[in-house]
């Protein structure tokens, strides 16, 4: 289906180049991989072995002048230079000997001087680290190279304690914080060769959330838990494109145990934005990402919704097709799920997911403890989470990739088999229409068109008789002529069906009309109706005269409008507001008027108009 589930030919070379450009690997990393770990690539197919590899480029071009010059151009290239770590005495273009020489002699005139002056004037570790970080940063490439800090000249001079060599996560946090302050922002960070363990990385994402490339080569990361500190699964480093874990136990052990494929799979799931792992490209779908430098637009300040809650929206398709489908579908779904075999395309996909949280508004409204809904407390999530391959809530599937596959049901027979195993349901599709809400419009499907149909509503769970809310999304296509679906009277057939099951929330959530962002103050509530231009009533005599800019809140009334309003469901409150607005009745009388008219706004307003002349003045705001 995806045309290229394995990395494209040559991708290793590209990846290698990308890493080199980012300064993440040095030239002999692939070579070491070949020589040190002959069995380390069992996960890769044999086919790939004839593809161009990064190493070939090095073989053909021994003098990587571009790379070297870019390294050399970071003027303070001292012991921190990555090349110096491995190539003990490789020549730079400048003809200067690397590390051994550098360590024993001066780095360059100005650096030495700077160091001396620092030593004279500064003592705090944070100041020392600030100099180390600054020295190790190449602003042109956005590359901060913190490799092998223990060997750093400044670290030694200031007597700093690097993380991994006595320093803990707080010491690391100091360094990351300083790194986060660098300008321009750090794109690439190498923490290679620092003896680091997972907890050292605890604060990395906090200070460098937009980091794109990270090398943790040759550290002591051992477990998946160690990686949780930087995993997108935990909301960390969401923009990470490249990661190097070569030379860490977690990777090396996987490959030694011939689990390289699983390692890659797990890594891919734990780092969802990753494009290159350990110098190999990961097959992926990409999106147009916001760039970190994107110009900040005005901070959102609106305190009202720009649009109202709308009613069900169906376009581009005959409404009867949708309603016929839904009525039949839910009827059969509730009564004889095996008969749905024809409603699903032979290749259809289905899964269900449980969102087990209790919605804040539902809790405030007491929907789970209400005496009016006595069965809610009998509901149990277990059958929804564990039966039929299990809930496919992908935020929760952490136990490996297998469950992700097992909980996706492919093909009509498998779909129906799964449906049968799930708890029984009763959708009251012919009951009050406001309990369901649907949106449907045409979408592209390959070269043709399909229909996206989303349904929100509630059902009664058979057995417990408790109520649950649900959201269901379908992709529908016309049933092909002569297909079983068509023969059996289905005009449309389901290609994809995703069902989210939730704790019960009231259908008032999608009641058409204006919505509030924040609760209204008493004052706002009283004046919610921008008072009509004409005839603002004079305040009651008991109150001092007020300028007429604002109707007086009903403080004087024993009736607590605020309490009354806040204790009623949102939908009712909206009705009260509407009546207040249209009649200028105060909250108390608006409630009375609505209650006497079956909570129908039109009837209430009509009734009001009949009796308006007879109402006491204090009936109004």
């Amino acid at each position: 289906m995806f045309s290229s589930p394995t990395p494209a030919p040559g991708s290793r070379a590209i990846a290698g180049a990308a890493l080199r450009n980012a300064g993440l690997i040095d030239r002999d990393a692939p070579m070491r991989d070949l020589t040190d770990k002959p069995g380390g690539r069992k996960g890769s197919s044999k086919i790939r072995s004839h593809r161009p590899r990064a190493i070939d480029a090095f073989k053909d071009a021994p003098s990587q002048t571009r790379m070297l010059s870019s390294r050399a151009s970071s003027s303070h290239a001292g012991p921190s230079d990555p090349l110096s770590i491995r190539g003990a005495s490789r020549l730079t273009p400048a003809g200067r000997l690397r590390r051994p020489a550098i360590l024993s002699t001066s780095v360059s005139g100005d650096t030495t001087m700077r160091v001396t002056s620092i030593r004279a004037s500064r003592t705090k570790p944070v100041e020392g680290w600030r100099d180390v970080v600054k020295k190790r940063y190449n602003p042109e490439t956005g590359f901060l190279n913190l490799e092998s800090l223990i060997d750093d000249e400044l670290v030694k001079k200031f007597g700093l304690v690097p993380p991994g060599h006595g320093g803990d996560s707080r010491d690391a946090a100091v360094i990351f914080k300083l790194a986060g302050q660098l300008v321009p922002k750090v794109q690439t960070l190498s923490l290679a060769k620092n003896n680091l363990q997972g907890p050292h990385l605890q604060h990395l994402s906090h200070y460098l959330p937009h980091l794109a490339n990270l090398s943790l080569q040759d550290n002591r990361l051992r477990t998946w838990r160690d990686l949780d500190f930087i995993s997108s699964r935990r909301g960390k480093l969401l923009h990470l494109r490249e990661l190097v874990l070569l030379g860490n136990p977690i990777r090396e052990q996987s490959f030694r145990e011939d689990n390289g494929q699983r390692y890659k799979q797990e890594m891919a799931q734990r780092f969802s934005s990753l494009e290159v792992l350990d110098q190999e490209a990961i097959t992926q779908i990409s999106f147009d990402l916001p760039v970190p430098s994107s110009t900040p637009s005005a901070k959102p300040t609106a305190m009202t919704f720009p649009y109202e809650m709308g009613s069900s929206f169906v376009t581009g398709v005959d409404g009867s097709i949708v309603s016929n489908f839904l009525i039949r579908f839910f009827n059969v779904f509730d009564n004889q799920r095996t008969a749905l075999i024809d409603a699903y395309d032979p290749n259809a996909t289905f899964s269900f997911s449980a969102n087990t949280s209790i919605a804040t508004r539902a809790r405030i409204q007491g929907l789970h403890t209400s005496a009016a809904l006595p069965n809610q407390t009998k509901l149990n999530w277990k059958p929804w989470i564990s039966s039929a391959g299990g809930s496919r809530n992908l935020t929760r599937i952490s136990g490996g990739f297998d469950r992700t596959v097992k909980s996706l049901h492919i093909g009509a027979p498998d779909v129906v088999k799964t449906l049968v195993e799930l708890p029984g349901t009763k959708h009251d599709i012919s009951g009050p229409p406001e309990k369901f809400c649907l949106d449907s419009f045409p979408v592209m499907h390959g070269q043709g068109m399909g229909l996206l149909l989303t349904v929100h509503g509630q059902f009664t769970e058979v057995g417990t008789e408790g109520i649950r809310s649900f959201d269901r999304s379908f992709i529908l296509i016309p049933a092909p002529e002569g297909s079983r679906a068509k023969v059996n009277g289905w005009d449309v057939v389901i290609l994809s069906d995703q069902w989210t099951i939730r704790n019960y929330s009231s259908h008032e959530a999608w009641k058409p009309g204006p919505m509030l962002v924040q609760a209204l103050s008493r004052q706002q509530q009283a004046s919610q109706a921008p008072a009509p231009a004409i005839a603002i009533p004079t305040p009651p005599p008991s109150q001092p005269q007020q300028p007429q800019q604002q109707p007086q809140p009903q403080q004087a009334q024993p009736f607590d409008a605020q309490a009354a309003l806040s204790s009623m469901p949102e939908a009712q409150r909206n009705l009260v507001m509407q009546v207040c607005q249209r009649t200028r009745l105060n909250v108390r009388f608006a409630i009375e008027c609505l209650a006497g008219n079956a909570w129908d706004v039109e009837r209430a307003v009509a009734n009001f108009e009949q009796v308006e002349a007879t109402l006491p003045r204090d009936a109004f705001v």
Partner: protein
Amino acid sequence: MTAVVPPVVPIVPIVPITSSDVEIATRAADHFTRIYYTTYDSDTRLNDLPQFYRPNSSLTWNGKPFQGVEGVRQLIEKMPSTKHEVLSFDCHPIPGTSPPSLMVTVSGNVTHGRGPAGNPPTTSSRNPEGQPRVFSQTFLLVPDPAAPATKPGELAKYYVSADALRFVG
């Protein structure tokens, strides 16, 4: 009598979904939902969020339709600030498309404005206004034929071709 040879190739060949497809799709949905809502909740949303869409994208926000990149801009321009919390998401590769379209459904909470903290001090604790809402959002993600893959391992660049959102609790 001549034997009737049945057609060997089905009229509409359907490429079956492999576990590798599922893996890639799951990952893409994970990545997408994270960056989408992070972007939505950021101060730069007006510049950044429309980038996930194309001029031919269709979307509905609580039943109100919008069209394309401009529509997205129009929708979010005067939207109060948001804080989304994804509590559940799911993703299917859609059969019969190659590379497959992805349907992603998301269920979660969204807080608007300043949330409960922004309510007037006299607000009753039983007043649900200002509290998080439950949202349900369905995306159809499709490959952009005009944006060829540029990065190693990249199959295609996807965009939001359809997006339907409702407040549901």
